[in-house]
């Protein structure tokens, strides 16, 4: 694979205004990013709007990508998640949730190749998640994957919001110190 064909190469070309490279970048990454925002927003229309914003942001910011931010897919996924979280934090609980029937279309097994996953940190993270108290771990995973707010966690786990916040933060402190040891 030449550098022009890697996501990093495509991102570099995009930064130079190469729209063909940007299109290829889109083709290679949009399914992953769409999966991520759909999971959080649980609404296809909103997810499409978010994805549109996200790719325009990627177009504009491609030149600022720095490998310290993780692999290109991680950097792009971060932009996508941030946008999706901004939207749900601003709109829930009034948002429209797609009929659950849509889930049939939403979840598919994906062919995955190395460029579309960033497993660099996964080993340590899995280990350190396992060291957390089960409730704390569940809060963190449900927040990250499903976009749960503290209020939603509180409702789901039948605990006061303050307690959720305390435990969430306790869990994150423990997670960080474990990751730093690892």
């Amino acid at each position, binding site marked *: 694979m030449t550098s022009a064909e890697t996501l990093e190469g495509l991102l570099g070309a995009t930064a130079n205004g190469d729209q063909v490279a940007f299109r290829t970048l889109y083709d*290679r990454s949009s399914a992953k990013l769409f999966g991520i925002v759909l999971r959080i927003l649980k609404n296809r229309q909103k997810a499409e709007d978010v994805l549109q914003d996200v790719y325009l942001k990627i177009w504009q910011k491609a030149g600022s990508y720095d490998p310290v931010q993780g692999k290109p897919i991680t950097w792009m996924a971060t932009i996508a998640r941030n946008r999706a979280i901004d939207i749900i934090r601003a709109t829930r609980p009034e948002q429209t949730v797609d009929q659950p029937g849509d889930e049939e279309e939403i979840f598919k097994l994906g062919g995955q190749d190395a460029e579309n996953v960033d497993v660099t940190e996964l080993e340590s993270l899995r280990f350190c998640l396992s060291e957390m108290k089960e409730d704390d771990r569940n809060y963190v995973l449900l927040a990250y994957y499903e976009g749960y707010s503290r209020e939603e966690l509180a409702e789901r786990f039948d605990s006061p919001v303050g307690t959720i916040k305390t435990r969430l933060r306790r869990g994150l402190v423990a997670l960080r110190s474990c990751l730093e040891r690892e």
Partner: protein
Amino acid sequence: MSGQERKLDAAEYVIGTLSAVERTAFEASIETDATTREDVLFWERTFGSLNASVAPEVPPADLWQRIAADLPGAQNPESSESDESDESGESGEGGETSAQGAGNETAAVSQDADGESSEGSSPGLKVVSSSAGANQGGSTASAAATAAMASAANDANNLRRSVSRWRTFAIAASIAAVALAGVIINSPNNPFAPPAEQVAGGELGGELGNKEYIAVVNANGDQPSLVINIDAKTGNVTVRSIGVEKPEGKSLEVWYVPEGQTPISVGLVGEGNIDLKDIEAKNGDLLAISVEPPGGSPTGVATGDVIYTGKLIENVNPN
């Protein structure tokens, strides 16, 4: 704000639990404070690895057109695009082909899962799974994940430390795709499934049969392994795997454990169907997986180690 507070805000910002107001305030501090920026990057890299377990979904074809329309020079994209593709032969096609290829791959893999789940021919059920670390699709994808992780672990210490967990991951990679892919909820007696008219009407409501449940299934004393969503309304069961380990020469038996009651065997992971038709789901119930002799427990109760458990939580309808 103390440094510790800000570190925690960084973590909560990345997982997304700050409120809208807190997010806005925090984003301002990312701009101005290098340490905060470092903390955010740390968490983004760390949690970014979990994105691998989110199933990809191809966006609608017209979405690209919407994006392209906002790019500079969008008024004459045809000329620039056709120039480019002439120049590189089939480069435009190439893009298509690669997207197509990815689509095909997706279809091929999900067909396997469908094959599994359709054995029980339960109407309206869709069982799907996705897993972390590029680990579907058997040994090739597994090898790719292995290679990716090996190259990532270029630090010798890191590598040494990871060896034991590494092995687990590699095994996980090879079977995660089939894990629980055979979960079947049979209609019409399935308490997870709604009455037919509710399916047709598709209304979200507070009725018992409309509930959604979610369980984070954890390997005991070990890694969290699966996130399972059970949608009582549609009968959809969604399984996302962060890694499932199946010991060689054994079967993994799935047990449904109503709170305070005896576990009920509901099937074997990757061997036939997992049948939840006689189960009445409620908060606090457990899903558990034990290691059993091939073909499952001979006694009807778990005889081997229980390696995964997860508590069912009723999913609150955001409406």
